């Protein structure tokens, strides 16, 4: 490659630099043709919908189309903050997301540290393989399983409740138990998968650190707390900040498949609200405004998260 470029450069020495670039580009025209195909696809399916965001600022009528629909002076955004259902969805989103952050986020860390203490390699491998099986299932499939586990007719949980003398509870339509179910099932799906990255970073810890700690008389727990944990801490911090950046994603797939009107009060999040108001009630313009609000806040959060990581570790995530 280098030789071709050099040849081109010597040939065109007297001419301007722009010319050299042009020759270089011509030599690589196959590469540009390759690149053009995915770029056109990305443009159609990703950039054109960005133009569609305009309807958030308009009274959209499908007959007139996006461009000719009349502007409406931010009415949808004014309506947002008077809309009880939106405010409820915003609150639920933050509550569910933060609860997941507090409870689900540390689980893979604990899982990884404890699994690392298992001495039998085979047992370790099998446990790990089992742990991330649910990660490869969709929430449609997992919901079908979750509903049976909590079923009042044949669920194992209600079996134990009746065993100790209680009455079966219809968990899936019970406001008090719905959020705990979201958290537990999220953990079930993602704990093992989340642990992979921690296990990898534990595996790369210098064994001398453990030997030195042993020499100082450190026991097992001391080593876990004072060697293993600090070694994976940079990874923990990066993943934590990233997770904070996506705090408005409370789990659309999970909730849309598990919830029902009886638990909307606690379970309806921004994404599910956009889905229902837009694609079930066909308020395209208003739903787009709700979605845009979420996306803008989300982008600000993610970019700040990456900026913080960049400053802390000198490299961001890309």
């Amino acid at each position, binding site marked *: *490659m280098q030789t071709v470029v050099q040849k081109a450069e010597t040939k065109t020495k007297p001419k301007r630099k722009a010319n050299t670039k042009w020759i270089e580009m011509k030599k690589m025209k196959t590469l540009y043709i390759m*690149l053009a195909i995915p770029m056109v696809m990305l443009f159609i399916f990703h950039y054109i919908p*960005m*133009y569609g965001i305009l309807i958030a600022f308009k009274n959209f009528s499908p007959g007139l189309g996006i461009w000719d629909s009349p502007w409406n002076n931010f009415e949808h955004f004014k309506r947002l903050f008077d809309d009880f259902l939106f405010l409820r969805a915003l609150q639920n989103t933050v509550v569910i997301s933060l609860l997941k952050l507090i409870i689900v986020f540390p689980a893979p860390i604990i899982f990884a540290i404890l*699994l690392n203490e*298992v001495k039998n390699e085979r047992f370790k491998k099998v446990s790990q393989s089992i742990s991330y099986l649910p990660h490869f299932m969709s929430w449609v499939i997992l919901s079908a399983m*979750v509903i049976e586990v909590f079923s009042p007719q044949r669920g*194992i949980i209600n079996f134990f409740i009746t065993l100790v003398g209680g009455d079966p509870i219809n968990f899936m339509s019970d406001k008090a138990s719905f959020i705990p179910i979201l958290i537990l099932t999220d953990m079930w799906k993602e704990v093992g998968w989340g642990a992979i990255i921690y296990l990898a970073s534990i595996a790369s810890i210098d*064994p001398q650190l453990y030997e030195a700690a042993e020499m100082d008389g450190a026991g097992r727990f001391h080593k876990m707390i004072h060697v293993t944990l600090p070694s994976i801490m940079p990874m923990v911090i990066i993943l934590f900040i990233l997770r904070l950046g996506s705090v408005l994603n409370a789990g659309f797939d999970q909730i849309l498949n598990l919830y029902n009107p009886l638990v909307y009060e606690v379970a309806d999040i921004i994404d599910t609200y956009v889905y229902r108001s837009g694609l079930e009630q066909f308020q395209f313009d208003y739903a787009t405004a709700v979605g845009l609000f979420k996306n803008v806040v989300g982008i600000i959060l993610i970019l700040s998260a990456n900026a913080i990581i960049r400053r802390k570790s000198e490299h961001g995530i*890309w």
Partner: protein
Amino acid sequence: MGATRKKISLFDILNVTGFILFSIIVLYPFWQTIVLSFSDANASSSLGVHLWPDRWIMDAYEFVFSYGNIMRAYVNTIIRTVAGTILIVTFTVLAAYPLSKKELPYRNFFTIFFLIAMFFSGGMIPDYLLIKNLGLLDNSLSLILPSAVNVFFIIIMRNYFMTIDKGIEESAIIDGANYFQILTKIIIPISKPVIATVALWAAVYHWNEWFHALVYIQDDAKTVLQIVVRDMLTAMDLSSNQAASVGGGGMSSSELLLSNVRAATVIISIGPIVLIYPFVQKYFIKGIMIGSLKG
């Protein structure tokens, strides 16, 4: 490490017991689904730990396999997964290879063009309106075209290509090969691990994807398995506590619950993933490791 001392402590026992319990909890819902799929209404209507069917009956599967819609959805899912995976892999390679060339003029501009798509998107409604305006509603292409360019996969593959020794390519150029030949004859053959990883991820994505099918496809003849299961979920919701019986007319003597049929559908749906899982999981892990490297 500490493993030099082979003494087994109380902690080891508790720890291993903990992981055994954890594995049981993870697997129980799967096993329960299997049991449910081989049971009938009588066996499925009492509370209990159902670890074994009263008797193994195939009625739910007979129903699933004879019920045209479910089988058609199965075939649709397979076609979608194969076509969608081929499309994703092709587009990923086509974008990743030029972007891996440091000397490509305006490479940064193109990279940014792709990266922006990772952050900004139109959102649910503008996406829907686009598909509608393109006339792709109820067209199976709406299931594979919007996801054909995956920026995350492109970055993973680009990073892999960038680690390939430049010397091989340079000598091929001297021999008069063009970039397309280099890509197909040299780069792709030595990039099999990363291509396999991307292909597996893409296949799992398409096998599991349900939201586009929910929104873009109304025609039962074009729907996918995930939507069949989802429809059974919402049907269950509506009838709430009353178990809806679907086995009815023409079926064998025993009654089936919607739950039995749904469980059977779930099993045939996850079957392929579970069967290949032990053999391919290392590729998934490899994927997450490559992906976490800095680009």
